[in-house]
């Protein structure tokens, strides 16, 4: 990636590229898009101006609702009613797209400007084969025969690294994994060799490992075709790894534009600083994440001064009264910022306080609060007449009967001490959520033991379980699922108190109010209905609901995954504060390694239903590593453009848990695989240090600490990719 940037920097210096011309490829000037709903019009894109050269990548970042997607869709003139582009120019290759007829626009869409959407699961038409969907794009814009288009489609699938493209072209989307579908979407995007790709959160729905591959793929395709990319994302790590320059959006405005390095080294707008600081980085320790308090204002009800003033730590009286500042150059830098104090503010220092040893010491001398031993959860696979039994005729002669299971959780053990947070990380489908549900007996375990304060949960009858629920609560990724939409939240929380005889009547009402205030809402919020809250606020309500019964353990299943970084930081801090006050324990599930690093004391890295590595954060996140942990860590995009990443790209995808590989579950993708021993012998989860740091791998501790071999392995795999 850095090579790519260097190259572009040369272009910017006037070195003529093959298709370079003086004017930028895309020049957006004062673009304004409004949505006319019942109340005041919402201006989702308010006088946005920026430009993009050929072959260049520009990032567009900001919290959800800032207007990123509307801006991008406006460029393609894909705004649906009640939206309307009411002003500005979108000059693309010298022509204003806003002047074009709808028919002319259709010739441009997919052909000269293409879109790569966010969600690989819902962006492909389920009743058309992937081939049909690529071919129709090609035939729409190129004068080729059916069979030529098919050849081109196969070629484009090859280009994006879909194995056996010629066979898979007639498959339907549901027959592909998420990562492969995203590749199909990339193939569609590049199929007509566009000049500009608009990628709207192209990796947000993906696991880090898949994300790393897709980002590399995008970069490679872009380099090959000299395509310009407008990369919309809320992940500053992705921006740091891919973009040449960046635009930051807030409440429909572009509030800062800057070259990538400048943006991270010397942000000019307080909002940019706050965004950068609220990301929990994988390799730093903080006591508390600096947060952006509050939320973005409602676009139909903007403050009279600077839009950011209500949340800005540097706001002055002038900010609140002077109208919204325009985007202007700051000093003699190339950055532009919409802040009246931009010239005077020095925002180059992070406000995040690194606290090397700020982590609380957990007393693990006594009995654990919660203990899981050899937990197994198998789901029956298949839905035939015979249920999960399958007749197989493989051996010839009499058919043999075979029972098939999805081994979602296969022999997992860990414990949690009072006041401790234990994390479960791993790619989607590795069994994290199933562990969460099984330990709480929301699912029946297939085998194994679970103890809560010495009580055998796995043995309890349903009545006893119900009373234990008071001690153990769960919070989900989607707070909707636990909040009854037809009841005001005060009633929901109060009901939980009544059910477990905690409080009734006036006392209950009082405590509901206190709890709501505790989670950062007001006591008056009790009379509101769940849908009246934003996503982050709903998660706060869900936390208040869980806290209502004064539990000792809360299982948090991806509680911040659906939230913006700023809101995510607020929720993480809240969970930490509550823990410091009440000594509550958390089982914290996340696929976001930075988040786990920030909030957990110990962590289990899961792969295919098993624990690959377990230990204290400091131990797991430093050598010796399990090869899988190492590759996960290497795939995280750092929000720091100067960091060299040597990503370890894993081959293939996670194998099916119905037919897990023999020996070590990771052996089909392990870059450090020793040889036959990995295929035949299942490695034990063994101690590799003093502090209960355990790794399941046949390698010696020295080999697991070595990094050279990774780089070697990566180089090799890079060579193999090039040679075919």
């Amino acid at each position, binding site marked *: 990636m850095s090579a790519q940037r260097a190259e572009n920097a040369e272009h910017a210096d006037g070195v003529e590229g093959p298709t370079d011309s003086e004017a930028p490829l895309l020049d957006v000037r004062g673009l304004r898009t409004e949505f006319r709903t019942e109340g005041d019009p919402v201006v989702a894109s308010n006088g946005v101006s920026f430009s993009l050269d050929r072959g260049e990548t520009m990032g567009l970042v900001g919290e959800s609702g800032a207007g990123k997607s509307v801006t991008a869709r406006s460029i393609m003139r*894909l705004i649906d009613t009640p939206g309307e582009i009411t002003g500005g120019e979108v000059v693309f290759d010298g022509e204003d797209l806003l002047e074009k007829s709808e028919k002319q626009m259709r010739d441009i869409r997919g052909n000269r400007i293409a879109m790569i959407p966010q969600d690989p699961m819902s962006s492909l038409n389920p009743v058309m084969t992937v081939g049909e969907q690529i071919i129709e794009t090609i035939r729409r814009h190129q004068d080729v025969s059916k069979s030529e288009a098919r050849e081109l489609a196969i070629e484009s699938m090859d280009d994006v690294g879909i194995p056996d493209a010629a066979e898979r072209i007639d498959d339907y989307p*549901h027959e592909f994994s998420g990562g492969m579908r995203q590749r199909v*979407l990339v193939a569609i995007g590049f199929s007509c060799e566009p000049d500009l790709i608009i990628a709207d959160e192209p990796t947000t729905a993906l696991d880090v490992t898949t994300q790393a591959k897709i980002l590399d793929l995008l970069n490679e395709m872009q380099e090959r075709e000299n395509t310009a990319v407008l990369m919309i994302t809320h992940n500053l790590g992705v921006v740091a790894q891919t973009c040449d320059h960046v635009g930051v959006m807030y409440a429909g405005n572009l509030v800062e534009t800057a070259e990538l390095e400048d943006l991270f080294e010397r942000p000019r707008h307080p909002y940019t600083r706050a965004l950068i600081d609220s990301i929990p980085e994988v390799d730093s320790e903080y006591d508390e994440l600096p947060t952006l308090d509050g939320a973005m204002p409602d676009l139909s009800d903007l403050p009279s001064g600077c839009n950011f003033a209500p949340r800005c730590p540097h706001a002055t009286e002038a900010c609140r009264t002077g109208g919204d500042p325009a985007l202007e150059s700051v000093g003699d830098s190339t950055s532009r910022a919409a802040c009246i104090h931009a010239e005077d503010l020095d925002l180059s220092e992070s406000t995040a306080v690194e606290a090397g040893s700020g982590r609380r010491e957990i007393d693990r001398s006594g009995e654990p609060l919660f203990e899981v031993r050899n937990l197994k959860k198998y789901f029956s696979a298949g839905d035939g007449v015979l249920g999960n039994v399958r007749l197989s005729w493989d051996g010839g002669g009499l058919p043999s009967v075979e029972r098939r299971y999805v081994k979602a959780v296969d022999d997992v053990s860990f414990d949690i001490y009072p006041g401790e947070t234990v994390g479960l990380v791993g790619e989607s489908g590795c069994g994290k959520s199933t562990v969460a549900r099984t330990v709480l007996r929301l699912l029946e375990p297939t085998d194994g033991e679970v103890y809560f304060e010495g009580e055998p949960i796995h043995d309890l009858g349903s009545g006893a379980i119900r009373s234990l629920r008071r001690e153990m609560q769960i919070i989900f990724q989607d707070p909707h699922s636990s909040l009854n939409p037809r009841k005001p939240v005060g009633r929901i929380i109060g009901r939980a108190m009544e059910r477990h005889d905690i409080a009734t009547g006036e006392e209950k009402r009082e405590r509901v109010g206190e709890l709501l205030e505790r989670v950062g809402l007001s006591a008056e919020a009790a009379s509101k209905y769940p849908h009246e809250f934003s996503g982050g606020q709903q998660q706060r309500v869900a936390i208040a609901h869980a806290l209502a019964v004064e539990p000792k353990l809360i299982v948090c299943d991806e509680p911040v995954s659906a939230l913006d970084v700023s809101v995510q930081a607020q929720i993480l801090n809240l969970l930490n504060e509550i823990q410091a006050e009440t000594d509550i324990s958390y089982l914290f599930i996340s696929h976001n390694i930075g988040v786990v690093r920030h909030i957990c004391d110990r962590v289990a890295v899961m792969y295919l239903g098993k624990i690959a590595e377990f230990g204290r954060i400091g131990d797991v996140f430093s050598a010796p590593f399990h090869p899988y942990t190492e590759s996960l860590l290497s795939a995280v995009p750092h929000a720091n453009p100067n960091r060299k990443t040597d990503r370890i790209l894993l081959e293939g995808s996670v194998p099916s848990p119905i037919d897990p590989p023999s020996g070590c579950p990771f052996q089909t993708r392990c870059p450090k695989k020793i040889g036959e021993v990995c295929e035949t012998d299942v490695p034990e989860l063994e101690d590799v240090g003093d502090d209960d740091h355990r790794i399941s791998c046949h390698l010696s501790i020295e080999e697991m600490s070595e990094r050279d071999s990774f780089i070697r392995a990566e180089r090799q795999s890079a060579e193999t990719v090039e040679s075919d």
Partner: protein
Amino acid sequence: MYNYVIRRVGFMAVTLFLVTLIAFAVTNILPGNVALVILGPNATEESLAALQAQLGLNRPLYVQYFDWVLGLLQGDMGQSLRFGEPVAALIAERLPRSLLLAVTATLIAVALSIPLGVYAAVNQNEAPDLTASMFAFVGISMPIFLWGLVFILIFAVWFNLFPTGGYVSPTEDLVGSLHRLVLPASAMGFALTAYIMRMTRSSMLEVLSAEYIKLARAKGMSQRVVVLRHALKNAVIPVITVIAFQFSYAFGGVVVLEEVFFWPGIGRLTLTAIQSRDIPLIQGCIIVVALIYMISNFAADLLYAYFDPRIRYGGEE
């Protein structure tokens, strides 16, 4: 898929068994004595008893039931008390007429409702949509026989375009037959249109807001391609179930509508059978209508699977 079909067929067999039980139980609980119906109110105790014995009605109920089911399995539904003919023959004669009516009505409904539903969805909240929605509302609120009467009033009485009722076999007189088919089939078709249209519209609206539709537009596809190729194929999947359901409903509606249009199908046969306490005939009619109902729903599921590749190849990966 194969497993699925087997399972469904097994499921249908069980349902059919339950239907025989219910049909048998209901007809035996029905007030009124068959012998009394046949012999009239002046019959003597002896003659009544003799007839009961002759009809086998004095045997224990479970013996009667097994006898009947055994007969059913061999295609023998017994003798009609009222007509003195085999029930199977009576049904075989009437059923095709009712099917003709119901199928034609369903075809009319599909031909009208799907384009209308699509049109309404594409022009959401504009005049055509609002008109269609209003029409749908009226259509759903009105019972089928009322549609029949309205149609008779307008097209037969006022404009004198079609006969008010009656049936002619298409093998004897094709034109005359179609002439008589138009009114009842359209009346029923209209009644069904409203519901299918509403379903098509809402299904289409949902699909039109899907991400893959946005992507299709972003690929430069024209409105026509987006609507017909990308959206309709998805939107129609849930509508298929509704159509099958409506077909079954049509079959129920036939009972009344046939009365309105003097259409000698299975509906009128059932009414006659009930009025004359003709137990074997009632039972036969119930079984046949239930069978049709089940088969149309089964067909819907197969079609559903055919249209939805996720089910077609689903199950194990």
